[in-house]
């Protein structure tokens, strides 16, 4: 018969090591798949698609320095579904006729911007961030100018990608 822990100190140490080992093995064996499950989104690539916005000629007709909010609809894979993500594109024409495609998300924490015509500014309703018509920060806490959508023109139609220019950390979206 094996000695009890009270009879032999080395036996006691041995038992404690075995108990510790078994707990660690079971713990690690459970933790690995759980961690995998929780961290899984880190290993998925974002679904990046193009969506039609409008005809270039129509957009060229808007008056300069007046924002026009145009909805765009991205069909993207999200988890186990394919969803339509409606987003606002703020189209702005500057005095030289160049078109800008801004996102209407505040660059601070992502709230939807309001255009305050009387003050010629975009205002964030959450924490008071302010942007001018060309997306520069003119007040409040936003750390950077407005995001601009990745875009291209094909056969006279503006296509928008669900991706911002100059946004390495994929913030916003």
């Amino acid at each position, binding site marked *: 018969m094996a000695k009890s822990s009270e009879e032999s100190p080395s036996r006691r140490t041995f038992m404690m090591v075995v108990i510790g080992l078994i707990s660690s093995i079971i713990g690690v064996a459970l933790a690995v798949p759980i961690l995998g499950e929780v961290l899984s989104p880190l290993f998925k690539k974002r679904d990046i698609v193009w969506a039609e916005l409008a005809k270039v000629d129509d957009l060229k007709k808007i008056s300069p320095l007046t924002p026009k909010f145009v909805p765009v609809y991205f069909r*993207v894979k999200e988890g186990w579904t394919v969803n339509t993500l409606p987003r606002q594109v703020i189209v702005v024409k500057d005095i030289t006729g160049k078109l800008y495609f801004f996102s209407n998300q505040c660059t601070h*924490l992502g709230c939807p911007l309001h255009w*305050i015509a009387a003050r010629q500014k975009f205002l964030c309703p959450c*924490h008071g961030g302010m942007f001018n018509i060309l997306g520069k920060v003119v007040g409040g806490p936003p750390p950077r100018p407005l995001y601009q959508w990745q875009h291209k023109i094909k056969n006279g139609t503006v296509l928008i990608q669900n991706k911002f220019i100059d946004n390495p950390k994929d913030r916003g979206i």
Partner: protein
Amino acid sequence: MLKKIQNWFDERIELTELIKEFNGERIPRRGGWAYTLGSLLAFLFTVQVVTGIFLLFYYVPYFPMARNATYFIKHHVLLGNILLGIHLWGAFTMIFFLLVHMARVYFSGAYKKPRELQWVAGMVLFTVVVILGLTGYMLVGNENSWWTINVLTNVASHTPIIGGFLRIVARGGTETSVLTMQHIFAVHVWLLPAAVMLFIPVHLFLIRKTGHQGMALEYNNSKLSDDDINKWKKPDATVPFFPDQFYKDMIVALCVFAVIYILAVVYSAPIGPMYRPLALNFAPEADWYFLANEELLKYFPGHGLIIFSTFLIPNIGFAILFALPFIDRGHERSPFKRPAATVLGILFLLLLVYLTLIGGEPKAPATV
């Protein structure tokens, strides 16, 4: 007959002894009403669990549907408005009384040696309950929920180094999607309640282990000095937990529950509009207990300072609260004998109230 049943149990598991052990705990006598707050919170948590479980009979954690499911519970389920209302007002009440409970413990110095661990366990419960409140707000699935999810995950993304990863893990992807709602749902109905159910017994066990040490006024007759650890072990007078203290607990529980119930019946839970991703004039609002933090976010502009409002100040604040018993190591308990702690506490509460009040003001001028 009853005696027989009692004997049957006693012969096997000594049930009467066990109940005596639980109920006979000696509670300091003078501050009876102040000590009802902890029991009140346990009661409110039970109410949240019970109502929450039955709300699940109708709820769907899926973004476009969640708000309609909540609407259905309120308007088409028999008495669903009351059940939903109790869950909402119960949550608000719970957070409010948690703050009152914390303030009571702070001002009476009840976190001091040997009860440091109780304070830490209590802080864990406080943190978890606040997150439960926030996730509950997100689960309603209305317009505010959507923006709360976006804003809070963006706040998380400003954590140094791991911020970006945190946001992706919390959202279940780079964008707020069906998986985000599923994650929040699992956290709100399982993970965090399980944590609370684990830590309430820890909190209670620690109280029994260190003994009830009441407010300074329980020791007026004691001749020992404040530095003597033995002074705090012998209150002038005590009463048994059952029925003396429990009676007071029940009266307080009933009063608070009545208020919750009336609010639930009269106001139910405001559900708000469906999420309209293209809305141009929507101004998101946080719940009242988050307004102070919300206000903080306005003050730190630009790339360099943003981290103060999103990460440093809230986290350092929490760390100080967690470590309070290890920072304030004096033996004085009476709020009048430790003026610095008392004044700081009052100032902090005033600041919190001030930030909450200005944080609640409408922020966007009417769209023209």
